[in-house]
């Protein structure tokens, strides 16, 4: 309480003024921590990767020699071409399917929408290897449905595209569902008032309204396919693609320079996609006014019934593939002895690390979730509210969106090149859990950051000003108000980081050490060793963990809501 002077004016104690300066310093320091994490975990590794692409084996300057070698090696070029058309084919299949699935969820009165929504999300929880393994069961050399492929082998483009469709579907469907859900009912009312027919409304209102969502979905699917490593590794056979090429150059041939070149090539479509997606997002945001009236569909049999049949079909394929993988993992000897057994889950028989690799994964994902959430949310808050926007702020804002454009495989490769450099004192981290956690946090930074920013932006922009006027430091208001209000988003971020770190293969495959082999890498190794059933079992075990995490989130969501969101009720 400031004391009142005899003349009626009020003096603030000098300590208060010092405290103010101290708080500002603290907030600024927070941004510097994030800056160093992103420098060590993103910028410096990528810079190293870039430099290495222009060096020869001994570290001398090679100019464009590596690139010359790349374009004159037909197999390498072919892989790039393969990646592109595989991605294009997957996009052409997935996006329309996702559109109608999302349309059914948002624009129809189809029954069981909640169930379909849940099934749609399941592939997100599984490692991308899982659908590939399931397809091997079904269409592989001993597959039950092999005949359906009319003599074509599933090992190659067919298998890759099928598995990618499964893996990419939820990503496209989520984007489409958001794009279709945020429509303005008044457009429809206006169209109906003008007596437009259903077909005309669909063509003139629905499709244009969803067009940026369609662009986003297509871009996301295309990038996922080009940069995914697990699926072509398991089911690609001899069919070369960019992602497996990086792996082959680095792990097989130990040619880090060529690996760096292929990595840069892999970065190109990802960056292009990233720019295109940002453009589409900006356009989409501009088409939405704050006062949109939500669209509420009315039941109509001719529309709802076909959509229900369609969704049942899609959902059974999704659930079916998972089921096949789960079933395959408890079969004694596919397909000759179909009796059930848990032997495949005795991982020590197939891989020296045994169950420990799952434990490593859980520890890695748990740490990434906890540390990553704290770092990402605090940074988002500092950028949005905590400090005056400065140059460091704008650099960080940009850096936070970069990881989305960097494929996991490229990031992993950049990590080895950077941390294994003889002159780097951080080299001791190589092979430890710490480097895996750092890699995962950086790899999945952008989506988590955007979730945090969106949540924080929904709060009144004057909270910090109000708190300053009440002489309460901003960080205390963040703790007492911002964090409790954003708790649902914070949980989302934590679970997102956990699930993705559990299931990722591409980034960590270069970085694990003898004691830190993650479960997803173990799946690759067991599959490489011909232990398909054990690989499926491990993939199912991973799914079990991620599914439990998700269920835990849903279960606690209600508790969290009761504890912290009481104020929402009127």
């Amino acid at each position: 309480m400031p004391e009142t002077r005899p003349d009626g004016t009020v003096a603030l104690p000098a300590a208060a003024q010092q405290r103010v300066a101290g708080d500002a310093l603290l907030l600024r320091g927070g941004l510097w921590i994030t800056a160093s994490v992103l420098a060590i975990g993103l910028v410096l590794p990528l810079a190293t990767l870039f430099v290495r692409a222009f060096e020869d084996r001994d570290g001398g300057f090679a100019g464009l020699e590596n690139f010359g070698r790349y374009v004159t090696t037909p197999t390498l070029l072919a892989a790039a071409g393969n990646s592109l058309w595989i991605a294009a084919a997957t996009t052409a299949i997935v996006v329309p399917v996702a559109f109608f699935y999302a349309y059914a969820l948002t624009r129809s009165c189809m029954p069981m929408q909640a169930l379909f929504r849940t099934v749609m999300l399941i592939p997100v929880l599984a490692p991308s290897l899982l659908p590939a393994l399931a397809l091997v069961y079904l269409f592989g050399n001993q597959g039950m449905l092999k005949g359906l492929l009319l003599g074509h082998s599933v090992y190659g483009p067919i298998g890759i595209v099928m598995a990618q469709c499964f893996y990419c579907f939820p990503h496209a469907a989520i984007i489409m569902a958001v794009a279709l859900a945020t429509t303005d009912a008044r457009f429809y009312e206006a169209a109906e008032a003008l007596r437009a027919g259903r077909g005309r409304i669909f063509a003139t209102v629905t499709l244009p309204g969803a067009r940026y969502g369609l662009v986003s979905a297509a871009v996301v699917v295309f990038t996922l396919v080009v940069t995914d490593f697990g699926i072509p590794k398991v089911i690609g056979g001899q069919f070369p693609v960019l992602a497996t090429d990086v792996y082959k150059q680095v792990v097989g041939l130990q040619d880090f320079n060529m690996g760096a070149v292929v990595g840069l090539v892999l970065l190109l479509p990802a960056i292009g996609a990233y720019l295109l997606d940002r453009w589409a997002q900006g356009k989409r945001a501009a088409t939405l006014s704050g006062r949109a009236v939500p669209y509420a569909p009315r039941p109509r049999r001719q529309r709802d019934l076909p959509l229900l049949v369609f969704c049942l079909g899609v959902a059974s394929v999704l659930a079916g593939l998972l089921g096949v993988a789960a079933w395959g993992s408890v079969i004694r000897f596919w397909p000759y002895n179909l009796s059930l057994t848990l032997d495949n889950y005795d991982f020590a028989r197939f891989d020296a690390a045994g169950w420990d690799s799952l434990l490593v994964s859980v520890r890695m994902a748990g740490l990434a979730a906890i540390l990553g959430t704290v770092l990402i949310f605090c940074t988002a808050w500092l950028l949005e509210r905590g400090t005056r926007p400065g140059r460091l702020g704008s650099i960080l804002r940009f850096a936070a969106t970069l990881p989305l454009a960097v494929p996991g495989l490229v990031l992993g490769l950049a990590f080895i090149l950077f941390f294994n450099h003889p002159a780097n004192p951080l080299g001791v981290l190589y092979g430890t859990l710490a480097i895996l956690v750092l890699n995962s946090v950086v790899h999945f930074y952008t989506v988590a950051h955007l979730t945090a920013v969106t949540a924080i932006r929904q709060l009144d922009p004057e909270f910090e000003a109000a708190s300053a006027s009440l002489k309460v430091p901003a960080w205390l208001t963040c703790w007492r108000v911002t964090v409790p209000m954003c708790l649902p988003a914070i949980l989302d971020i934590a679970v997102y980081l956990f699930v993705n770190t559990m299931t990722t293969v591409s980034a960590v495959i270069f970085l694990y050490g003898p004691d830190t082999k993650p479960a997803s890498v173990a799946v690759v190794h067991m599959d490489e060793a011909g232990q398909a059933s054990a690989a499926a079992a491990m993939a199912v075990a991973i799914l079990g963990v991620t599914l439990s995490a998700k269920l835990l989130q849903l279960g606690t969501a209600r508790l969290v809501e009761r504890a912290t969101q009481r104020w929402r009720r009127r």
Partner: protein
Amino acid sequence: MASGAAPYLVVEEVSKAFGTVMALDGVSLTVAAGEFVSFLGPSGCGKTTLLRAIAGLDPANSGRILQAGRDITALAPAARDFGIVFQSYALFPNLTVAENIAYGLRGPAWPKPRRASRVAELVELVGLTEHVRKFPAQLSGGQQQRVALARALANEPGLLLLDEPLSALDAIVRLHLRQEIRTLQQRLGVTTIMVTHDQEEALGVSDRVVVMNHGRIAQIGRPEDIYRRPANPFVAGFVGRSATFIAWVEAAEGLLQAGQDGWRIAADAARGMPRGTRVEVFIRPEDVRLTRPGEGGAGSFPVTVRHWEFLGPVCRLTLAAGPQRQLEADLPPDAAHALGAMPGAALAAEVPPERVLVFAADA
């Protein structure tokens, strides 16, 4: 402002630019201790920017601000002495009314019992005693406003800043609350600055009004001065309603001539202006006296009623005084009926010369 005492708040030549937009352009003003001052002006004229510069939330680019004799220009908001109510109230939605009000009451100076009794005192003051356990979303707009006010006053600040405190409320609550704020302010004697774009609000509750336009101060004065003696055409046009037209000074004793038809009107304000000066004339509707044709005084002129609008306590008549000139006149409905002031009726109008507002027009 009492002339003897040193002013409580001094704003000297404060400027602030957002990019190329000059939000504040050399603003100077003083506020006496215990005074209630309003910043009035159209949207975007820089009222909020000035308020936030005084609070230190968006520091000014240049100029000086002194509060209670202390130079606070460079101080962080937390080191200044003010309470503020934001346009959105910025109440913390996850804290109860009591927790919101007690938010700034922390540290060793505020042990729990003292804090509790202060909160009780404040909720009593704003009349929310039975709502202390509620969350902001469970309160009406007016009640939220009172919580924000109580929170801003909790620490007994020397200066209370209100940014459009009533703009989110509906008309009746607004009227009621603005009187309540004024009463409270007078009871506590706290120096208060209120930002508003509503002139009735500003004129109704303030000791003095600061009229702003394009980042500059257009006029500072008591409400009556602002209304009766606007310093420039902007204030005359912005504050209150008026009919306006261009005229020329015909004779130095204050006779104006307008238009080709030789229409004349006497205006005290034009006295001493050189003959032929081009002027802007403003006439307020309540200053126009209407009589039956031929019954008016020497300065009266004929008008025709064009349009008739019923506003409740008064009727507003639109009058044609000559081919291109329109005036408006307010008069009680009964008087209008008595005069037969229906559309098409011919009447005589008269404006007291001391009430005609005249400003020399540029060029």
